[in-house]
């Protein structure tokens, strides 16, 4: 729980503006889902882990006598999938983005319970270029915010799931280990015993080596042995994405261990990292819309973590030249003159405030004294030059000239 102070809000808005601008220019449309959703939206898909659902803020609404709970939105994609299903034509490409807060309990209080994210979802395409388009959008936003160098790390949920299948684990165990990997405990995969020598070798390579080109994937493929046919589709998919990124001159690392996020990911998973800080991530979730109750529509998306970005983004100095307007008399006539002068100057594009009892004038370029009768007195704080002027138009003229 924390406040966002004016400086924080300036950073927040800067991030939001850049993200909105980049998204709108690529044809994404902005949406916002409600903060309060029904808990069953999140339980129905079966794609949030029990430990994640154990940390949501759920409670009985004022009409909750049925015992069904509502929840403060714990993540952005499932509500976006619901919104898509309820409101958009099925089948066509739909591109949505949002700036939203999410809520999850965090015991230590060190991390935040309310987090903000810039999210984008590309619904209706299963092709690698769709995934690449999302990654490029995120990188463009980060680039425009001056945040870098950002590492793009690739992993693949399909590949991990196929590997778990090859290791001969039961369905429940596969889910459990996949969840552990998504929570950052990849070593769980390395600890599984397997008799298959080829698979063991491939697994070691996947776990220990970070690839930086499609060539790495060819090496993995060569080592797989008889497990290869079942891993092939995922490897092909990852290869296509890697090839496209290479061709675009976009550096990346293939690091299976980097996979983070949600159980609903089915294909590529990508993370944006600045040294050790994760500033965003996303992935493909082709099964999610069917799980929410819709037809089989493929989709992928990402989120940029606004809270992390806020500490990294630089904000420009306020572009305005501030003007303070003071009344010399306190009668209605004098105050009216103040309000009118302030409005005129403001309309000319200056940040103009009325002096309502301020102690000093620091931070203001201009101070305008408004008498009950007689000329205005304009002081340029930068040069200490004072000018007597009779109309607001003259004031603006002087300001323009000394810019």
């Amino acid at each position, binding site marked *: 729980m924390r406040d966002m102070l004016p400086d924080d809000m300036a950073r927040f808005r800067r991030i939001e503006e850049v993200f909105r601008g980049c998204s709108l220019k690529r044809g994404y449309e902005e949406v916002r889902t409600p903060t309060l959703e029904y808990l*069953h939206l999140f*339980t*129905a898909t*079966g794609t949030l882990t*029990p430990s994640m*659902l*154990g940390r949501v803020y759920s409670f*009985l609404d*004022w*009409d*909750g*006598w*049925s*015992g*069904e*709970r509502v929840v403060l939105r714990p993540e952005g994609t499932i509500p976006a999938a619901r919104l898509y299903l309820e409101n958009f034509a099925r089948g066509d490409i739909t591109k949505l983005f949002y700036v939203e807060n999410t809520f999850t309990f965090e*015991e230590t209080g060190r991390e935040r319970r309310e987090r903000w994210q810039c999210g984008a979802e590309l619904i209706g395409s299963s092709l690698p270029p769709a995934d690449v388009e999302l990654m490029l959008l995120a990188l463009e936003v980060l680039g425009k915010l001056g945040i870098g160098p950002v590492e793009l790390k690739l992993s693949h949920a399909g590949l991990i799931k196929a590997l778990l299948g090859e290791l001969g684990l039961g369905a429940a165990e596969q889910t459990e280990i996949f969840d552990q990997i998504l929570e950052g405990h990849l070593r769980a995969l390395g600890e599984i015993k397997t008799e298959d020598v080829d698979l063991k070798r491939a697994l070691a390579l996947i776990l220990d080596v970070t690839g930086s080109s499609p060539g790495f994937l060819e090496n993995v493929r060569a080592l797989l042995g008889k497990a290869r046919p079942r891993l092939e589709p995922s490897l092909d998919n990852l290869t296509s994405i890697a090839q496209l990124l290479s061709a675009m001159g976009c550096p990346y690392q293939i690091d299976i261990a980097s996979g983070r996020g949600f159980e609903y990911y089915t294909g590529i998973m990508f993370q944006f990292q600045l040294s050790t800080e994760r500033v965003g991530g996303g992935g493909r979730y082709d099964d999610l819309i069917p799980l929410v109750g819709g037809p089989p529509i493929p989709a992928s998306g990402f989120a940029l973590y606004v809270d992390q970005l806020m500490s990294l983004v630089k904000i420009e100095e306020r572009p305005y030249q501030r003007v303070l307007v003071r009344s010399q008399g306190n009668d209605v006539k004098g105050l009216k003159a103040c309000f009118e002068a302030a409005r005129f100057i403001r309309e000319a594009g200056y940040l103009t405030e009325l002096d309502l009892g301020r102690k000093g004038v620091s931070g203001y370029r201009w101070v305008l004294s408004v008498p009950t009768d007689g000329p205005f007195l304009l002081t340029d704080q930068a040069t200490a030059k004072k000018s007597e002027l009779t109309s607001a138009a003259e004031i603006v003229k002087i300001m323009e000239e000394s810019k």
Partner: protein
Amino acid sequence: VKLALPKGRLWSDTAALLKRVGLELMEYEERSRSYRPKSTKFPDLFLKVFQEKDIPIQVAIGNYDLGICGLDWVEELLAKYPSGDLVKAGDLGYGKSDLYVVASGYAGVSSVEESNDRFDRVRIVSEYQNLAESFALRQRLRRFSILPIWGAAEVYPPESADLAIIAETSVSSFADYNLVPLARILTSKAFLIANRKSLAKADMSEFLSCLEPSEIEAEQEQPLPIMTGKEFEEAPQGEKIRLALPDGHQQRPTMEFLKRAGIGIQGYSDPLETRRPTIELDGVSIKVIRPQDMPLQVANENFDLAITGEDWLKDHLYRFPSSPVQEILALGFGKVTIVAVVSDDLPANDVGVLRDLVGGLLPTIRVASEYVNIADKYARDNHLERYKIIPTWGASEAFLPEDADLLIENTETGETLARHNLRIIDTLFESSACLIGNRNTLSDPLKKDRIEHIIKIAAETIKKSY
């Protein structure tokens, strides 16, 4: 050192343990009217008797350094608040009971997965609502609702719930209600629990060693008892009018009322023979449940009519203002007054003075009550500003003055309150037994006539009584 002791189920074994280790307790007896037994061996030991369910909370918030209660209530608290200051200090070895997830044999489901597939929304009743929720999440139930209850979980399935989570010392009792266990959540025993901060700073070794708790062992996986439900017949209560009758204090006057009305009923006796008595009214079926649970059950259309108290109806409506439950008839018996009560030691004769004590004598006002929503509204309406509600499960008068400042409680004569050195500072309202129904079912054309018939009999009986 402060130690919280249980009433009820664990009382006699706990008393025996304390006697064996030579604590020499006075007034820790089942019928004792005192909530504060004393140890002649350790005069500095402060002891208080609570409902078992209250003890983990009291220890977790640091009101008590140590407590004795069942593991089930410890886990119920930890399921929702895993990071608190509650520490399991040792297994005391007695009071074993298992916590089962059960379904009705009539429903024909043999696993939790099956109920996830079968029901659009899995309705779960339990006294353990936090354990129920974490169970539902762990099992990945797609859609569920949890109806917290005060007791009598065994009578709910299949009509009023799909699953129930029940503590049972032996599974043979399941047979009476044709319940089939689907999973065992935990095996509970009496535990010694401690507050983490107390353990960290106070030397309590004398008590800890003399209570001789054994090490806490990891629970062994045990096979579920194999029970199969009776043949799936017609749903036992089909299209009947479902009437809920109260157990507890309201049972006797309700029995008398039925007698005056000339309605015969078998099995609704004191002590209770069965929670499914049969009534001599065509097309009406009966379940006996806690009056506290009735408004929520009627709101969910699990019952068409119920005899409960106006206090419990109000408590429900304060929480759920748009609930379809309404009072149909005041029955006139079981009159109590709902009052605001403080300890004689507190210099406050009315709620205004109490309010002024906040920030001075009292940092916050701790309001204890069984009526959580009535208490909350009372505190809000009276601008008690800094207050917290402490939900209790009976024996609330024991909370004052050490563990609460204000009590919202019912009283018949005020004698019990006076005996515990408590003073009434405000009267909230009078409450008596009432017949409640659901707006939606009252206008259901299939049920309307029969419901009106029952209401008519009740109304005539009331008229006869005066």
